[in-house]
Structures are given as structure tokens and as C-alpha cells.
């Protein structure tokens, strides 16, 4: 007998930008605080957070242009999700580990990674610390307590558990924050990571950036549950559902979760309800599968503009500062990009490094053979260009 119609698949409609039931919001889209709410961070901290978010928006826009020009192979932007990314990271100490998914690389810049290194990684050139081994948006940032991203979905969740557990076992009070999107919550490894963290009381925080889309599949087809925060409940992990476009709500929830973890209270999960304003990555075209009218309806909820409105109301931000930030950053990107783009590709030998701490026999053998081959015939890469 043929299969019945997939019963868990509701109509293929895009979600409307209404805040889901039970979600916490502190900052309204117009930049006013909701009645009774207070700003959860200091004024200067709020300014710094805003600057990081705005810089990311500008950087993403610029990199998408370069990708379209064929100068970068691939890019995954954070557009629309800046609050979920940066406000959660802002609630951490520099020694707390960040275990990212696709859209969190900007946290590295916030933590001090030079833009030059970031751009060299996008180019995969000789100055990239991983020497062109990884796709763009996979920077290495261990000195900033940032684990390089894995292209695999949800595999990083147990890694966050492990980093957190190791901190605890070494008697330090560092916390690890593991990021995923909504689709990753379907994966076995997501549950494996949560189950382990719960049972071993790892000081971990899991941030689910629910941007409503796993490439083309809406969250309604990813899960029959009312929200993704509920995924944590079965493992015994407390969770919070917050307006992911509200930097204050995200920051406040993360701060509480981090405090809880740091003081021995165990892991928590935060679902940041947001929207992917752009394509999944540059390999994708969302107009083919979703109603971009809905995307437009999300625009007034923009997380970056929202925080700016609050800053302006509080007298902390002006059009002049905005202009200065924007112009300065665009200029910096332009200059640093020019430097990075001039860097040659990595040498052939770099292929064989870092497979093991010291290469095994067959790797040495193959390195020598390739070296000899390239000396004789030139590099196949030359032809590829």
C-alpha cells in the first residue's frame, strides 16, 4: 500500500511575524520598553552592542556583493538575526566558549578577531590560519574561545556540552554556549547534546536561533511542537522563549542562563524567535519557495533598527554617530579587503599539514609525490584559474 499523505506537514505557508504565545519581549519595535521592563544592560554596553550589530549588517551586505561578483565562494549572512547572535554573546565573558552554527562568525569580530583574519578566511588564502581548507564563514577562533564551525548540522551541540563539562571538571567557572538554528533541533546530535548536558549538569547554554527556515523548509514542517523551547523540557533542561529580534530580551535571557550555569545550576536553552531576512546562503534563492511579502512584513521588526531607536530615545545615539560608524567601517572593510585579496593562495605543502600533529608515512609520501608532480607539471590550480 502506498504511504498516506504526510500527516505532520501542514500547509506550506510562511509564518507571520506575530510574537508566539509565551515569548518574552522587553523592547518594542518602536524602541520603547514594554510597560514594567527595564534595560538589562548599561548604557555604554548597549551602545557597543548596537555597534557590533550594525557593523555585522554592513559587513554582510558588503560580502554578499563580493560573493555575487565571484570574489568569495560562499557566504551565510546574519541579516535579521543580529540581536539573537550579538546580544546573546554580549552576555558572556571573553573566556566563555562560543560554539557556533552558520551565522555567528561575527561574534569573533566582537571578541577582537582582526577583520583581516576574518576576510582572509573568506578568501581561503595563505594568511588564513586554516589555509583555505574550510568554506567561508568557518573561521578558527580558539584564542577567542570560539570553536570553528562545523558544516554538519547539530554536531556542535555535544561539543558545547563537552567544553562546558571540561570547564567544570577543571574547576573553572567558564560556560559554553552552543548555537543552532531551528532545523538542527530535529537532529539526533541535538538531543544527544542536551541529554548529556542535563544528566551531567554541564554549565552549558543552548541558543536556538529559530529563523523559521531550514533552507526551504518552514519550521512548521520541522516540528509539530508549538515551539522549539519545548524540545528541552523532555531532557530536564529549563528553557525560555524570547523575541529574538529584541536585543534586550535575548541579552537578559542569556545572562540569566549563564549565571545559572556558572553557579552550578546546570544547562538551559533559549529559543530566540526571529526571521531569516535573506537567503539561507548565497547558494540559495528563497523567492522560489517562500512569500517574500511575509519577509517584508518582518522588516519593521528589524533588530538593529529597534535597538537604535531605543538608543536614540535615550539620547545615546545620533544620526551623526550613525554616519561616522557606517562610513568608517565601510572604508575599513574596503582597505582591509584590498590587502586580503592580494594575498596569494596557500602553498601545496599546507594541504598535508595538521592531519596529524606529525604526519604519518603515507602523508609524507603523498606530499613528496605531489611536490615533485607540481614541480614538473605545474599546479592544477593554475589551470583552475
Amino acid at each position, binding site marked *: 500500500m502506498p504511504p498516506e499523505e504526510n500527516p505532520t506537514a501542514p500547509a506550506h505557508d510562511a509564518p507571520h511575524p506575530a510574537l508566539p504565545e509565551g515569548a518574552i519581549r522587553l523592547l518594542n519595535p518602536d524602541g520603547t520598553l514594554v510597560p514594567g521592563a527595564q534595560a538589562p544592560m548599561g548604557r555604554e554596553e548597549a551602545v557597543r552592542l548596537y555597534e557590533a550589530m550594525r557593523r555585522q549588517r554592513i559587513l554582510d551586505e558588503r560580502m554578499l556583493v563580493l560573493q555575487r561578483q565571484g570574489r568569495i565562494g560562499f557566504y551565510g549572512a546574519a541579516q535579521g538575526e543580529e540581536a539573537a547572535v550579538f546580544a546573546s554573546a554580549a552576555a558572556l565573558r571573553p573566556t566563555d*566558549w562560543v*560554539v557556533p552554527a552558520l551565522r555567528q562568525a561575527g561574534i569573533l569580530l566582537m571578541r577582537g578577531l582582526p577583520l583581516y583574519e576574518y576576510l582572509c578566511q573568506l578568501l581561503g588564502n595563505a594568511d*588564513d*590560519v*586554516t*589555509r583555505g*581548507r*574550510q568554506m567561508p564563514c*568557518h573561521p*578558527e577562533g*580558539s*584564542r577567542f574561545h570560539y*570553536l*570553528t564551525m*562545523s558544516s*554538519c548540522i547539530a*554536531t556542535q*551541540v*555535544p*561539543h*558545547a*556540552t*563537552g*567544553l*562546558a*563539562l*571540561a*570547564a567544570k*571538571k*577543571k574547576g573553572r567557572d567558564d560556560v*559554553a554556549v552552543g548555537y543552532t538554528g531551528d532545523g538542527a533541533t530535529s537532529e*539526533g*546530535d541535538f*538531543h*544527544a*547534546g542536551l*541529554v*548529556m548536558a542535563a*544528566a*551531567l549538569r*554541564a554549565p552549558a547554554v543552548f541558543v536556538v536561533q529559530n529563523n523559521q527556515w531550514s533552507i526551504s523548509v518552514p519550521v512548521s514542517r520541522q516540528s509539530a511542537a508549538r515551539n522549539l523551547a519545548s524540545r528541552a523540557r523532555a531532557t530536564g533542561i529549563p528553557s525560555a522563549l524570547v523575541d529574538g529580534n529584541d536585543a534586550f530580551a535575548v541579552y537578559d535571557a542569556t545572562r540569566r542562563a549563564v549565571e545559572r550555569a556558572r553557579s552550578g545550576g546546570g544547562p538551559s536553552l533559549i529559543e530566540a524567535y526571529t526571521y531569516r531576512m535573506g537567503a539561507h546562503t548565497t547558494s540559495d534563492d528563497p523567492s522560489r519557495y517562500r512569500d517574500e511579502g511575509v519577509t517584508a512584513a518582518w522588516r519593521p521588526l528589524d533588530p538593529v533598527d529597534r535597538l537604535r531607536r531605543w538608543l536614540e530615545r535615550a539620547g545615546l545615539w545620533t544620526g551623526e554617530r550613525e554616519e561616522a560608524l557606517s562610513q568608517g567601517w565601510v572604508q575599513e572593510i574596503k582597505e582591509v579587503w584590498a590587502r586580503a585579496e592580494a594575498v596569494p593562495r596557500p602553498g601545496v605543502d599546507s594541504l598535508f*599539514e*595538521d*592531519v*596529524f*600533529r606529525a604526519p*604519518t*608515512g*603515507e*602523508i609524507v609520501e603523498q606530499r613528496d609525490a605531489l611536490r615533485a608532480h607540481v614541480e614538473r607539471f605545474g599546479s592544477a590550480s593554475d589551470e583552475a584559474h
Partner: protein
Amino acid sequence: MSVMNIIQAVHSALDSELARDPDVVVFGEDVGRFGGVFRATDGLQAKYGEDRVFDTPLSEAGIVGTAIGMAAYGMRPVPEIQFADFIYPAFDQIVNEMAKMRYRSGGRIGQPVTIRTPVGGGIRGGHYHSQSPEAYFAHTPGLKVVCPSNPYDAKGLLISAIRDDDPVLFLEPKRVYRAARGEVPDEPYTLPLGKAARVAEGEHVTVLTYGATVHEALKAAEIARGEGLALDVLDLRSLVPLDEEAILESVARTGRVVIVHEAPRNCGFGAELAARIAEKALLHLECPIERVAGFDTPFPYTLEMDYLPDAKRIVAAARRAFSY
């Protein structure tokens, strides 16, 4: 010196490394309170505390994934997968994450993880307590694969594996967990990874093997000696890195090779050994390389002893090679 079996030797290695290095932690299903289903971690939790020797939920991907995170933080986790047959839920974590982390991080993040897991048949374990998965891991760049055959090697190799800065799959031949006994120093010592041991000397046929089948090869050498056939038996001990030098040296002397392993033959690790010898020593070869392996079927229950390569099959292969 004490006489130990392999379990005791593994225990002794874990004990010494837990004592030596506070970053070493041992965990897995049933390893803590119970001391492991094979008792390899017996008493270690009582001695080192629940912080360093602990039970985990039943989640192989979780166990390995957590180990990866702990290693990234600077610890030396020694997780146990209770049976190698259950390692596949963690396959993606091992192959796609652990094996590539050093490469992906430009050498910044190592993975000094040793995954211990019992392999192989002969204990009436059927499909799911008998498999030998070494070929999958040996094929994956970035992983080391070690398989001892006796207590002395088990202790020295396990200590080396734990101290190694790269991820090691430490495959313990459970068929001879208790049967293989021998003298083992009580103090810690290391054996280099990637060095084979010549366990029988002979000039007629080279036999290459590792793990439990080393004992079958030794029996075969004895039977063959009665027929005037001298087998040169190499216990490879580690598949990655591989002691190619020792292999080629032996093949240059004998010109004849029999490769023995329990795992299914097709695309098994023996194929790599045979291909390397055929590539590098063809002109020394007097006859085709023989492979004696598990059959290309799932691992059986009742007929497991017929499935497993034994001394008779090894002798028959050696005879075929010799009389070619």
C-alpha cells in the same frame, strides 16, 4: 611485574594515566559505578572520584561529541564505546568532527581523545556484539587506529594512545580479553604507535595480522612448522600509522604473504595491505598475496567459529602461497 590479562592491562594503563594527568577523564555507558561491562574500569571511580570516571547517558553521539568538546578545552578524554558495534551512531562525530578538527582549526585545536572499544567476535555475541570496524576508521585521514593482541602491548599502547595528541581508536580484541595473559610491568611504560612486532620468525611466508587473530597466526605457525614451513608473523599493533618498513622487510625475505583479519574481506584493511605490497614489492613476490578474512556477510551467531579466520585457514593459505 604481574601476570595480567588484557582487561587488567587496560585497567592498569587507565589507572596510571588517571594518576599521572589530571586532564585524563574516563567515561561511557556503565564505566563508573559498575566498572564497565568487561570490568576494564573496575574501581576507578572509587579511586579517582565521580568527576573523573563517570557514567553517561546511553548516547554514543553524545559521548563522542562531548569528548570532542572536552578535548577542545584541553582535557584528554578516554571515552568508552561499550561495543564497537554501537559506534556507528557516533560515526559522523568521529569521521566528520574529531578526525578533522586539527585540520579545520589550522592546528590550533587538537583532539587528544582515545576512544576505547571492544571489537571482534568469538564471544557468541551475534551481529551486534562482534563487529570489527577498523577499515572505516583506517580510511579516514586524521584518525589513528591501534589494536593490541596481548596484555603487555595493550598497556604500553594504551598509555601511548592517551598521551598522543591526535585522536586514537583503540580497538580491544575482546575474544582474548581474558585468554591472553602475560607479564606486565606494574609501572607505566609506553610503546610507540606505528611499530609492528615480529611474534614468530620464519623465512617462508609472511603473515600480517593484528588483534585476536595474532593468536590464530601463532597457532598456525606452530602447525606449519611441523610441516617444515616457517611463518614470519608480524603483529601490526597499529594500522594507522602503519609500520610499512617492517612489512616490506619481511616480504623482501619471504616473497610470500598471507594477510589475516576478522573483518569482512571486501574493502577490508587487508586490501590496503595487499595493495601496498603489490605496489611496492611486486618484484619480490613469488606468488599472489593471500587474504584470510571474515566473510562478506553479517557476523553470525551459531557459526561464528567458522566465520572467524582460524589457524587451519591460515595454514591452508600459507601452503597455497608456498606451493604456488
